[in-house]
């Protein structure tokens, strides 16, 4: 009982810090569009958005470097101080992003500062996860390692949940008038989610300072058998390098794309391809996350009984065979062609505004279209009326849909299924990685494949999938080819080469 009580303290302290780090990391991605208007030249909105997404990707790409830097440190000086350092770095960078003046105020210094701070965030995150997972695993009894480490696995999803919640809450609480509140949020309110992070980080640092070092690391330290060069021992020796490569290509690579497809690309798809409005596309994800999160613990715990391998690989298999179907269902549910319009309820407003310094005018037509199943679609069409007889070749049309109650919950269900797959691939993976490597180089060895799998393969999923839809414009589901191919290759490698054995002793 005493031992278990101690473990819960370890899990609580580790998870809180890791959750905050994920929160810090995600608010940037979730606010990509707002940040684009604040920090990048407004002449071309697509270029501005791409720049932010590239910054987002940069955050992910530096994660493997963070894994190397902090992994090495964690194996040299200990787990506790290393993941304390990553927390300070992450909290500081996030707070600083909230303080950076806009592009209009300080010019190109603004995007450069944001980019640098984002890189620091990525570096910190690269060091955090391996430390937290190792720390919890090294405190856990062998027969419940999957169960205890699965709590750390919930933090990434809960961090996303909290970030979405804080953003929606802030967006709607800055003014009694919803439209004014959103305008204030886009102007300055977006800084609040970044700034509040500092309070959470201070609390977490206080808790982590009170924690003790991992008992297995203390044992190594006392015996004088710590690694003197963790990088060389991890990647310079064939016997360990082959396990690092196996962890990457047989587990984390597929796990990463399944994770980011379910939790990020799904939301991006609902908002940008299906044109569901900002709030609904996020609340759908919030509900799906809420229902699916307990399954991280279920699968982590189950992996203590049946092994880690087949749970993870089944999750990958299900993702590979069902992604096309699931995304197609969401696409159909939001497609006006499949619905009956209530023509008599259609509302249309037209406004004409003169364009400064010309004799031309800008015409804006806002049409509100109602459907029998409860969906509402707002179409905003803007075109220029020229005085010299020219007509606009292609008017700018923006569409925003609010789906009806029944379809809303159907979409929640389909996203839930995708996140359920995430819980299968991600729930047992911390225990799997910890068991693969020896204590003296564990932090370094497990951090790199984890962050290449998740940071590079996973983190670039929404970006590459969106890019594919711009290359092959006729197929709205073409973006799924990337996660499907990567997960399929990983599934074959994992099936062939990974063992289902649970390591009884990780203190060697």
């Amino acid at each position, binding site marked *: 009982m005493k031992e278990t009580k101690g473990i819960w303290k370890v899990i609580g302290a580790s998870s809180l810090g890791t959750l905050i780090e994920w929160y810090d990391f995600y608010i940037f991605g979730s606010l990509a569009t707002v940040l684009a208007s604040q920090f990048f030249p407004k002449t071309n909105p697509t270029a501005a958005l*791409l720049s932010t997404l590239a910054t987002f*990707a940069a955050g992910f790409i530096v994660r493997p470097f963070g894994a190397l830097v902090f992994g090495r440190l964690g194996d040299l000086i200990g787990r506790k101080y290393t993941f304390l350092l990553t927390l300070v770095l992450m909290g500081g960078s996030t707070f600083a992003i909230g303080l950076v003046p806009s592009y209009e105020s300080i010019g190109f210094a603004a995007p450069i500062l944001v980019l640098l701070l984002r890189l620091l965030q990525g570096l910190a995150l690269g060091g955090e996860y391996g430390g937290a997972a190792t720390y919890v695993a090294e405190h856990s009894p062998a027969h419940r390692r999957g169960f205890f480490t699965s709590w750390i696995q919930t933090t990434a999803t809960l961090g996303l949940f909290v970030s979405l919640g804080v953003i929606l809450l802030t967006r709607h609480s800055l003014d009694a008038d919803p439209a004014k509140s959103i305008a204030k949020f886009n102007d300055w309110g977006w800084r609040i989610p970044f700034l509040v992070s500092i309070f959470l980080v201070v609390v977490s640092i206080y808790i982590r300072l009170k924690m003790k070092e991992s008992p297995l690391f203390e044992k190594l330290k006392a015996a004088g058998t710590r690694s003197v060069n963790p990088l060389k021992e991890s990647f310079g020796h064939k016997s360990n390098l082959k*396990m690092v*490569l196996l962890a990457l*290509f047989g587990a984390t690579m597929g796990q990463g794309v399944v994770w980011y497809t379910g939790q990020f690309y799904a939301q991006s798809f609902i908002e940008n391809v299906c044109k569901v409005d900002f709030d609904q596309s996020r609340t759908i994800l919030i509900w799906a996350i809420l229902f699916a999160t307990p399954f991280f613990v279920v699968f982590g715990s189950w992996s203590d009984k049946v092994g880690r391998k087949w749970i993870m690989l089944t999750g990958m298999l299900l993702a590979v065979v069902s992604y096309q179907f699931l995304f197609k269902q969401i696409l159909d549910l939001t497609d006006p062609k499949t619905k009956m319009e209530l023509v008599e309820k259609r509302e249309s407003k037209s406004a004409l505004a003169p364009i400064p310094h010309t004799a031309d005018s800008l015409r804006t037509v806002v049409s509100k279209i109602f459907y029998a199943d409860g969906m509402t679609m707002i179409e905003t069409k803007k075109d220029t009326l020229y005085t010299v007889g020219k007509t606009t070749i292609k008017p700018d049309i923006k569409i925003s849909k609010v789906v009806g109650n029944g379809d809303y919950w159907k979409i929640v269900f389909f996203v839930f299924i995708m996140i359920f797959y995430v819980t299968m691939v991600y729930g047992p993976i911390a225990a799997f990685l910890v068991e693969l*490597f*020896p204590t003296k180089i564990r932090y370094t060895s497990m951090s790199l494949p984890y962050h290449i799998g998740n940071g590079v393969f996973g983190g670039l999923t929404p970006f590459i999938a969106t890019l594919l839809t711009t290359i092959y414009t006729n197929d709205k589901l073409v973006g799924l080819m990337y996660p499907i191919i990567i997960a399929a290759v990983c599934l074959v490698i994992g099936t*062939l080469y990974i063992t289902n054995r649970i*390591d009884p002793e990780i203190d060697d």
Partner: protein
Amino acid sequence: MNQLKRIAGIIWIVLGPAGIFYLIKTAAAEIAKKPVLDTKIQWGVFVVVFMPIAMGMVIFGYYAFKGEYDHLPERSEELLD
């Protein structure tokens, strides 16, 4: 099973360079289609990031082909030799 693991190693060895070839080919086509800085940075990052990963895939395939994964280590001493 071990025989299958070794034969599959050849696929992983080929997959690395094949993936990079496809990536570079797509990158060149996309940059030619829209030769602006954004496109160049974007595709440049992809090539730079995935290049070492493809090399890792080749090494993985080579190890598989040589039978390094016929038996997986069960004790840490086997990883630290």
